[in-house]
């Protein structure tokens, strides 16, 4: 189990992440400058925390301020792929890969390098220098180099940020597959929510130096535990309301635009809340159809704006409050894939009914 609980001040910035990871890929997700990369540096041993403890997956203590333990980077058995890759430009791909296993007997070293070359599809590139390789190839060499010494932990710092989208998607799948095959613990830093979603077994949401929430990917994405996490996860529909009643794990939440029953075991049970729902989880249906079963909240809306986003359309849909005294209209953001958009003929009319299904709603406290 990788256990991180550290404290580090650099100028005004206060880094204080705390989370754990088993043999899985944990995405550190958050805006730029929130301390994700610094966390990796601390785990790798390139940044010394002021306080706290880092326990590596094998159980070895890499850092412990209490016992003044601080393993140097070369004794932490951590494979670290930095954002700029930092392939050694004066070495060939093979020399780069073998750098970390120079002390192994020659035959074993060769076999290990050959295995990694095959695993990452680098055949034929062994004698090339980094400048003679494409971005994707360099990326694979960096990964092979980090894996060569059979580390117990893999750290990946936005390794694909310089690559174009199709290559990123392919390398993401490869990284995930390689990690699973080697059964490694891995930390993957990204500020790209799509990447976090595609890769993460677990997600740790960072903001301003701390981990606001961490847990299995779907839990975190579906049930943000604070307004800030919901914002960072691009939930987009964060609707003010208040809990009316609570019984047997089901909260009845009233907002000016709708009333919903929310089954969210970890949600607050009373007081002011925000109701959160992701734009892709909102259902759009015709207003002249009969209403669906009572589990869903249905709201009549009017499209006020739409933005084509390539393979999806973002719709801005205005809902009037149930009572005009209750305030302003609310504008829902809804993402709809191109195909249903065309089949339903969204462009042909302005009035649409939206449906919010109970399992996609979550509640966060409102101060």
């Amino acid at each position, binding site marked *: 189990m990788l256990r991180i609980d550290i404290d580090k001040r650099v100028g005004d910035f206060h880094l204080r992440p705390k989370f754990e990871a088993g043999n899985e890929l944990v995405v550190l997700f958050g805006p730029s400058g929130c301390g994700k990369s610094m966390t990796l*540096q601390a785990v*790798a*041993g*390139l940044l010394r925390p002021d306080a706290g403890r880092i326990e590596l997956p094998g159980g070895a203590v890499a850092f412990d301020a209490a016992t003044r333990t601080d393993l*140097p*980077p*070369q*004794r*932490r058995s*951590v*494979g*670290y792929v*930095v954002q*700029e890759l*930092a392939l*050694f*430009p*004066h070495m060939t791909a093979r020399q780069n890969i073998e*750098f*970390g*296993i120079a*002390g192994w007997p020659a035959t074993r070293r060769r076999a290990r390098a050959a295995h990694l070359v095959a695993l990452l599809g680098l055949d034929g590139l062994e004698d090339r220098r980094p*400048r003679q390789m494409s971005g994707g190839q360099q990326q694979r060499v960096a990964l092979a*180099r*980090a894996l*060569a*010494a059979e580390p117990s932990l893999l750290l990946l710092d936005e390794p694909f940020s310089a690559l174009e989208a199709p290559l990123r998607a392919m390398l993401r799948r490869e990284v995930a597959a390689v990690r699973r095959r080697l059964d490694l613990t891995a930390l993957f830093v990204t500020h790209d929510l799509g990447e976090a979603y595609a890769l993460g077994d677990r997600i740790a949401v960072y903001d301003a130096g701390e981990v606001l929430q961490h847990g299995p990917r779907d839990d975190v994405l579906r049930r943000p535990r604070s307004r800030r996490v919901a914002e960072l996860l691009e939930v987009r529909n964060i609707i003010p309301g208040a809990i009316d009643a609570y019984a047997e794990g089901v909260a009845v939440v009233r907002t000016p635009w709708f009333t919903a029953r929310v089954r969210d075991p970890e949600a607050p049970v009373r007081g002011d809340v925000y109701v959160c729902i992701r734009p892709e989880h909102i259902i759009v249906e015709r207003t002249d159809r009969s209403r669906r079963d009572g589990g869903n909240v249905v709201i009549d809306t009017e499209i006020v704006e739409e933005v084509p986003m390539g393979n999806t359309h973002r719709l801005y849909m205005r809902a009037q409050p149930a009572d005009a005294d209750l305030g302003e209209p609310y504008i829902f953001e809804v993402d709809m894939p191109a195909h249903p958009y065309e089949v339903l003929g969204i462009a042909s009319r302005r009035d649409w009914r939206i449906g919010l299904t109970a399992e996609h709603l979550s509640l966060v406290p409102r101060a």
Partner: protein
Amino acid sequence: MTVTAAPPADRPGVARRARLDWLFGPPALLFVAFLGVPLAALVWRAGNSGELGNNITSSLVLDSLRLSAITSTVTLLVAVMVGTPLAYLLARRDFPGKMIVDLLLDLPIVLPPTVAGVALLVALGRRGVIGQHLDAAGYDIAFTTAAVVLAQLFVSAPFYIRTAKAGFESIEPVYEGVASTLGASPLRTFVRVTLPLAWPSLVAGAILCWARALSELGATLIFAGNLRGDTQTMPLAIISAFESGASIDVPIAISVILVAAAAALLLLLRLVARGAAMRV
């Protein structure tokens, strides 16, 4: 075919530059001639004297050539051995007094070398601050071949250290960080990663240092004197040859050797720089 494939003359920027040629060309040419003519004259006189071979193999020239070769090489080796760690520390570490060390390294570059000679004499001369104790212990430095090396080292090592420091600074620390996560000790990281990446700068600095040591005159004259065979390097031999009132062909012979050596070193420097550019 793209726009960039068009002949240069079609591009307005190039055409405008061509018109400026009439304005800037003459002073430029004049200065090139000012530099080139004396050196050409030197080589031409040397070739025409018919005595070049004899002069070059005269004992005065051979003695100074041998001494210059030995002292400048020793200077270079010492500069590299002492200067490399200093350059690395200056590039990678913060320590108290770093600014003063930086300043110290610049001073010999801007000071007249004769000042360096006086300073060395005051420190290491027979009655110098340190020299008097060395003298009491039976060691004499001033006016020996060792003094030649020290004088050269004082004025030329900063050229190596400056260039090496810039070379180390240009390496992103992330390379060294990654090397350490790959299990490399600090020393192995330095030898396998830092040194090769800084290599072009180190070689360039070494060439500059060597060239400066080879041409050293003022500090040597004051701290080491002008003793044939012991402290008379080639630049000093030129002065002696003039003072002896003998033929001007001897100074010419020495000068030609120095010009050839300097040109060879500069050519080497260009090759190293181009090699470095191609590696990136």
